[in-house]
Each structure stands twice: as C-alpha cells, then as structure tokens.
C-alpha cells in the first residue's frame, strides 16, 4: 500500500435511526471529540448544536452582499441621472430618490441572494464531486434513510481501537475505516 492510500482519514459509524445517531453524537461530543460530523437524509434541527457547529456565517455574507447591492444600485442611478446625463424636466430635482427606490430594492435582493448562494457553497466546500466518504459501503443510503456519524483521525482524542469500541457500544450497525484525503 502506498502511504497516501493507507493514510487513515477517519472512522464512520452507521445507524438505523435518527435517535440512535443523536444519542451517539451527544456521547461522542461529551467525550471530547471535536472533529466530528454527521450525515443524515433530512435536516435534524438539534444536530448541528450537538456537534458544536450551530453557527453559520451565511446571514452575515448575505447582509454584506445586500448592502453592496443597495449602494451600487443607488450610486449608479444617482451618477447616471444626476451627474453624468442630467435632464432638467420642469425643474424637478435631479436626485429624485423615490423613483430610484425600486431598482435599489431589486438589486439589493439580487446581490444578497447571489452572495448567499456563493457563501453557502464556499462554507460547505462545495462543489466537490468526490469525497473519500463516498467510498464507505452503504454511504449512498444516507440520502435515503441511513444515518452516519464520522470522527476524523486528526482529532486529538482519536484512537482507532477506542473509537471503534465506542461506536459499537453506541449500537452502530457498521463501522468503516476511511482512507486517504
């Protein structure tokens, strides 16, 4: 075996139900493991908190995107209508702000949405079409009805034998080694 192939990336444990997974995740977290993740067919509300990952930077990214959109839109309209190509129509103010609101609103939403999606993908490290986890037998059932818990080998508490025993104690149906990164 080459060294890149034999390099242990982590261990997965497969569970049949969300309750078992939640219990296992809680136990593992309490034991001090931090480089953990769980894979489920549908979002489970309490899970991110249990594994200590309840914060998402997406709202902040979207707020910044929205502000950039608003400033861009208003600035563009002010520049074009008030400065670059001023049209005097019956002496009405050139900076006619109420009429600039619709486009400012639309571009605020557009920029915010685009930055939100970009932020979501970057934070998830997607797109990434292949991942070592996909080689775990039965991992394709996660998107249907299986629940998988995962501990990375780089976790300071990680010891292969102990983790394996812990997983079986927690009623894991199958424990699989994942190699390579």
């Amino acid at each position, binding site marked *: 075996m080459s060294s890149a192939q034999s390099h242990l990336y982590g261990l997965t444990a497969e569970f049949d139900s*969300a309750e078992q997974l939640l219990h296992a995740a809680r136990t593992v977290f309490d034991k001090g493991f931090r480089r953990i*993740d*769980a*894979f*489920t*067919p*549908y*979002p*489970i509300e309490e*899970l*991110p908190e249990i*594994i200590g*990952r*309840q914060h*998402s930077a*997406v*709202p902040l990214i*979207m707020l910044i995107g929205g502000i950039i959109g608003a400033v861009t839109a208003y600035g*563009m*309209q002010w520049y*074009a*209508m008030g400065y*670059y*190509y001023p049209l005097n129509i019956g002496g009405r103010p050139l900076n*006619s702000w109420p*009429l*600039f609101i*619709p*486009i400012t*609103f*639309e*571009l605020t*939403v*557009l920029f*915010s*949405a*685009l930055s*939100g*999606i970009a*932020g*979501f*993908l970057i*934070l*998830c490290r*997607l*797109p*990434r*079409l*292949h*991942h070592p*986890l*996909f080689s775990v037998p039965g991992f*394709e*059932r*996660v*998107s*249907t*009805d299986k629940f998988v818990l995962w501990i990375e080998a780089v976790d300071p508490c990680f010891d292969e034998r102990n983790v394996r025993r812990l997983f079986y104690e927690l009623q894991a149906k199958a424990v699989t080694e994942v190699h390579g990164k």
Partner: protein
Amino acid sequence: MLESEIESSSAPHLLVSPGETLESVSGKISGIVLGRKHPAFWWVSFGVAFVLLLGLLYGIITLFAIGVGIWGINIPVAWGFAIVNFVWWIGIGHAGTFISAILLLLLQKWRNSINRLAEAMTLFAVACAGMFPLLHLGRPWTFFWILPYPNTMGLWPQFRSPLVWDVFAVFTYFTVSLLFWYTGLIPDLATMRDRARTWFSKIGFGIMSLGWRGSAVHWKHFQTVYLILAGLSTPLVLSVHSVVSTDFAVANIPGWHTTIFPPFFVAGAIYSGFAMVLNIMIPLRYVYGLESVITQRHLNCMAGVMLATGLMVGYGYIMETFTGWYSGDIFEQYLVINRAIGPYGWTYWLLLTVNIVIPQLLWIRRIRTNPVSLFFVALSVNIGMWLERFVIIIVSLHRDFLTSSWGIFAPTGWDWLILFGSVGLFGSLVFLFVRFLPMIPMSEIKEIIAERKKEAA
C-alpha cells in the same frame, strides 16, 4: 378521511399518508424519473406541447422576418397580445415563490410537497413572460439598450421609468427564483445520484448535486440560506407585479391611472398562479399516483388561497368602477361605461363570469376537495385572468381621449399562434422537468415523516 379533519388540522398524517416511510417516499418520487417506462400520458401531453412550441418558433421567425405588422396592433392599440400575455404569464409565475417563500415563513407545512413543482412552474412562466417584451420591441435585436452598460452613444436608460424598473424586477425575480429552486433541489439531486443505476444518470445527477453529502454542517448552512432567501423573496414577489402594474398606473390613460393597481395586480397574480399550479398538479398527481403526498388537504388549502385572492380581485373590480365614477373625470367615467357596454363589453361580462362568479363555487366543500371540479374552476380562473389583462390593456387603449383616435383591435392568427405557442413552451418545459427531475421535495417529505414518528413516540 373525515372532511372536518381536512379543514381544521395540519397534522402530519394529513400531509403524507401514514403508510409512507423514508424509503418508500424516496423510491416513489425518484422512481418517476429513474424508472425505464414513462406513462402514455406523458408522451401524449409532451407531444401536444411540443407541437405548439414548434408553432411558437414558426410565429417568432415570421415575426422577426416581417415585423410586428403581422399582429393586429396599430395606433391607438399599440400594446396588444404581447403585453397581455406578458402580464398573464408573469402573474402565473407568482404562485411558486408565494408557496415557497411566504408559506415557508408562515410555517405552513402543507407547502412542502407542492413547492418544488410550483417553483419550477414559476421559472417556466417567467421565462415565457420574459420573451414577450422582446417580441413586442419591433427591433428585438436592440433589446440591450434598456440595460445600463457603457456604450458609444453615451446614453443611460431612464431610471425614473417603470419600464426600466420592470427589466430589473423581472430579471431579479427570475434569477432569485432559479437560485431558490436549485438550492432546494441539491439534497434531492444527491438522492437521485445515489439511487441512479445507469452511467448517464449517475454522472448527470452527480454533477448537478455538487457532491452533496448531507452533512449536519451542510444542512445548517443550507437551511440558513434557504430561510433567508425565502425572507428576501417575500417582498420580491410582492414587488414584481407591483412594478409591472406601475407600467400602467404611471400612464395617464383612463383605466390605467389608478392607485389600486399594485395590490390589485399582486392579488390577481397569486390567484392565477394557484390556478395554474392546480391545473398542472391535479393531472400529474393522478397519473403518477402521488395522492399519498399531495393529499386532499393540499388541494383544499390551494382552493382556499384561490378563493381569498379571487375575492380581493373582485374588490379590485368594484374599486375600479367606483374610482371611475368618483373621479369626476368624464374620460374615466366614460371608460367605466364603455368597458361594460362598448364594443368589447362582452369580454368584460365574460371576465366577471369566469373570474368572479364561477370561482364562488369554491365555497362548497365538495367542489374544493374533488380534483375534477377543482381542475375546471382553476381553468376558468386562468382564462379569466387572461381576459382581465385583455380588458385592462385593449379596452383602455381603444378609446383615446379624442374621438379621432378611436380604433378597434382585432387579433390576427399570428397573435393566437404566439399565445398558444407560449402555452406550448410552458407545457414542454413542465413535462421535461417532470421527466428529468424529482418533482416533489423528498427531503422535506422525510422531515414530515420524521416529525410524525417523533409525535407518535
């Protein structure tokens, strides 16, 4: 199922049949796409839609070759079917985002099994809508003049004009709807990837699902972005038809120049959107055996929204007439009379019949919960909302202020070809969607099943 139960409760067992499990839902919904055989219904419907689509292409090529003179438009009725169809389609395109965004924020669980199809329908309707202003331009190859870009003419678009707002509103709406729809699809695309058996579908769904693994961290970001997009789409969906309505309301044409237009247009948009969702969903539900996830409760809820928005539209008609009279302006008052008994009077009475009178049948529970009768009421509303735009645009324009500029608009065969052709474009897209993508959000149905299991425990 008791009828009183359908009315009162949003309990999970009414939204998904008790027999469904995580596996059965995935199998049933992904099987529609991954299964080898497709029902004869699909081939026939897609075939009809595709023939109409070819008609549209023929119409558009002729239009570009000869010009807008092939239509019935002239002065004073320079805004003909193209604008009627534009407003009609963009209105239909409102239900998807309404269902996905507003009902999500209101925690209406019944939206979960219908949102995907409704969102797809929104995209296709907005695509149909977006085509018409371009066709209407006369010189469509100069369409980009309305966009702000550095150009050798040294010109900017007039940002104070609602027509320019419209471009921004429709473009933003389409883009945000597309992002919202695609984001919601990602977990389901991963399910499809994992269940696919052929090389082609594995690769296709594999690329489209972006490598989604269902990690708790991914779900967290996913749900956050989805919720905020819903929050952003809520004012957006209300803004789009409001902006469209200002195309009319800002002009001083009698019949257009009213302040009620923005809310009146939005209510009508949601009305026609729900009607179109029902018109598509009822046959698909029957053909693909989806009664266990699109239940009577869903139909009943949609009928309820239709009834409510229909009454708002009815209020709009009353207010239009009232403000016409109350304005004290002889042109406005004349328009009210002309609308009812002028040369196009019959369209107004037909409009009131199919858009206001017939939908009152929805007060009757048996009609709301019967798919067949509901289908026909929804069809009537779709026709009605098209007629409404016809009445607003054609009838208001055909009598200008001076009698010397009165005229009559009569649609030509090309007008009708392009109208029905756009229905063909819409239908083709809907049937391709049903064939190649999961039309019901599996992960959201699974959430409902999990919730039910929790409650039972």
